[in-house]
């Protein structure tokens, strides 16, 4: 028996750059995942591999597989097991963070780590080992995963940090290239309400905000600074710092305290949807500058103990559906890096560089990281992380970002692969010195290199090259449904006759 056929679909990441076409197979059950991975493994010679995709929130090319199979895992969205006494929940890997919240927040359990959007799947959260505004205190997502089921080309395994630590941690941040996660057990955190108690303050420049974070972050569970990357000179890095914690029942107004079920209410709403791709250049230094000015001035100078909703505090951008279309057809990228605590100056240099060339960047976000987890490709390390959204189109963008890469490597930092769409293989190896260790685990569970993605190809983690001996006469990949004509077996190279030329100079 083989997996259902895929439908050839052009895919991109959230940044809408570098499209490629994959055969998308709906993974309606873990059995389909097993069949599809087995099919891909059976046609290694002619096939182009397989990768899982969740809600497509990776900015770059992580969840696409040009010419190969992409498993749409959003169908794996069941609750398998729940322990309401301990908050341990076992769910399908396609369940979104939003669904988790909708199901468990009314019962008093919250996700241990949430990124800036609720629209990510549990599988994607593991593959990218995502972090939130509480990393300094709580670590990244996989630190809260006690067990997961992983479908690899060499078999299906249930792994935990103790049963097979190498495979578990290679999968944490492994961008899906060690297997397809089909289910995971997550330890949720208890909360009394669905509200946040938030302190907001404006900082006049970068030094001020970094000092505030260094001196005060330990008093809060969550902390994030929004930085205006358009401002220069004495205002360079002016910011709005928001920090908070889950509100307790007694923090709520009396009318909510009397109705505990309303205190845990969670009804996320989308306010608007960007209906189509905006004209290129809508977000330019002028419009973004105006927005940043507005955003900075609308924030209170200093405000304490204000109640926010969970959506408003963690996921303000989820209020606008498909906001990535605002960047136009050419799309955008996010440049997110981390540098160690002692290299905080690198943050300043990056912001300086971005502000001097007037790249239209809004929503630059600065956070602090605590210790990383053991994952060799996991992104976080103790230090500062800055994320910048940048529209594609500036004629120097490639060179500027390459220069910033070097700066970050020199500072001992790295780029977040879930956001990446442009790092070179050499820069990747410098940023992730333990990548060889990761590769060894991948070779163990996927010796033929069946798990492939465009990101893996770009970074040199997987290849489509075929050894010449296995090429002849092997069956074609069953997944390449769009090809109408079978490829002929390779023949000898075309050799030119000496008189026929492909190019001829005109007679004088």
């Amino acid at each position, binding site marked *: 028996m083989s997996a259902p056929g895929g439908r050839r679909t*052009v895919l991109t990441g959230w940044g809408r750059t570098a499209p*490629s*076409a994959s055969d998308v197979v709906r993974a309606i059950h873990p059995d389909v995942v097993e069949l599809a991975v087995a099919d891909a493994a059976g046609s290694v010679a002619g096939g182009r591999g397989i990768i899982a995709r969740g809600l497509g929130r990776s900015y770059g090319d992580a969840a696409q597989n040009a010419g190969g199979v992409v498993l749409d895992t959003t169908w794996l969205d069941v609750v398998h097991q729940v322990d309401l006494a301990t908050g341990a929940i076992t769910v399908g890997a396609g369940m979104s963070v939003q669904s988790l919240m909708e199901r468990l927040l009314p019962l008093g359990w919250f996700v241990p780590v949430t990124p800036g959007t609720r629209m990510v799947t549990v599988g994607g959260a593991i593959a990218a080992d995502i972090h939130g505004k509480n990393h300094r205190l709580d670590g990244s997502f996989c630190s809260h995963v006690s067990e997961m089921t992983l479908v690899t080309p060499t078999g299906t395994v249930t792994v935990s940090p103790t049963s097979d630590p190498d495979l578990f941690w290679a999968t944490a941040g492994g961008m899906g290239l060690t297997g397809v996660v089909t289910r995971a057990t997550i330890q949720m955190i208890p909360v009394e309400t669905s509200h946040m108690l938030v302190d907001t303050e404006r900082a006049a420049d970068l030094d001020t905000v970094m000092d505030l974070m260094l001196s005060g972050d330990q008093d809060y569970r969550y902390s994030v600074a929004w930085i205006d990357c358009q401002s220069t000179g004495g205002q360079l890095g002016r910011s709005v710092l928001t920090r908070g914690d889950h509100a307790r029942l007694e923090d709520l107004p009396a009318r909510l305290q009397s109705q505990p079920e309303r205190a845990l209410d969670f009804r996320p709403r989308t306010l608007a949807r960007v209906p189509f791709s905006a004209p290129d250049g809508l977000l330019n230094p002028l419009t973004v500058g105006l927005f940043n000015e507005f955003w900075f001035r609308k924030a209170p100078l200093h405000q304490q103990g204000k109640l926010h909703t969970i959506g408003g505090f963690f996921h303000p951008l989820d209020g606008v559906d498909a906001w990535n279309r605002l960047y136009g057809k050419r799309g955008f990228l996010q440049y997110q890096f981390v540098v160690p605590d002692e290299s905080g100056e690198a943050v300043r240099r990056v912001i300086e560089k971005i502000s001097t060339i007037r790249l239209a960047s809004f929503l630059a976000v600065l956070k602090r990281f605590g210790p990383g987890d053991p994952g060799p490709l996991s992104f976080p390390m103790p230090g500062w992380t800055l994320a910048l959204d940048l529209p594609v189109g500036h004629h120097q963008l490639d060179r500027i970002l390459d220069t910033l890469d070097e700066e970050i490597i020199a500072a001992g930092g790295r780029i977040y692969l879930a956001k990446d769409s442009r790092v070179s293989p050499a820069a990747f190896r410098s940023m992730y010195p333990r990548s060889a260790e990761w590769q060894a685990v991948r070779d163990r569970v996927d010796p033929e290199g069946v798990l492939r993605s465009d990101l893996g190809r770009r970074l040199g983690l997987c290849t489509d090259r075929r050894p010449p001996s296995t090429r002849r006469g092997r069956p074609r990949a069953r997944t390449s449904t769009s090809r109408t004509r079978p490829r002929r077996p390779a*023949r000898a190279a075309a050799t030119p006759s000496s008189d026929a030329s*492909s*190019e001829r100079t005109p*007679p*004088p």
Partner: protein
Amino acid sequence: MIDAIGRPQSVLVLGGSSEIALAIVAKLVPARCRTVVLAGREGERLAEGVRAATAAGADVVESVAFDAADIDHHQAFADQIFDRFGNFDLVIAAVGVLGDQTVDESDPAAAAAVMTTNYTGLASALLAVAGRLRHQGHGRLIVLSSVAAERARRANFIYGSSKAGLDAFSQGLADSLVGSGVQVTLVRPGFVVGRMTEGMVPAPFATTPEAVADAVVRGIESGAAVIHVPPLLRWVMAIMRHLPRQVWRRMPG
């Protein structure tokens, strides 16, 4: 893979000794293009192209024998080269000859040779390559056409008609590849001062291989479907296409 900023990591050039193609490669290699395969007529110029790409810092540089007129071998050529290298992010179709209109008008075989190289032969190779690009699900195909393709001129209609054929073919091919992950960019330069036009008097709006290469590299990033070099030629040709025949046929060579 082509990255978000439009930088390919591997390139295959059909017509690997073309000045324009080598100028494009010279710009791509410093911007991370690691694999360069030059397919063309074996000889000193192809070898020079290999040396230049190696000197520029590409990791893998190879030359492969390729003949646009040898249509029997185009499918095997494409299969062999794609199997060996796995992926090509960019394919540049730069095969082309100018011919000599005054001589070729009275030498039908020579005229047919121009058409075979520029259109029918190259189109055959492009079909084979496009099939493999479709299979790999991504890639860019750059086809070097010419403004001469927009309206055949009395003074060079043999060359012009061959480019017109290639141009029309590429537009159709581009449409057929929508949804495949493969994009086609058609490049229509004006008079390019270089080896191909040595000894000729430059026409108005003349350009250089470097300028064409710059425009192509920008086009890869922006995803443009048609590029004129210089850009003004798009509007000049829009007018030229509608000139009365009596005027148009007197346009000098």
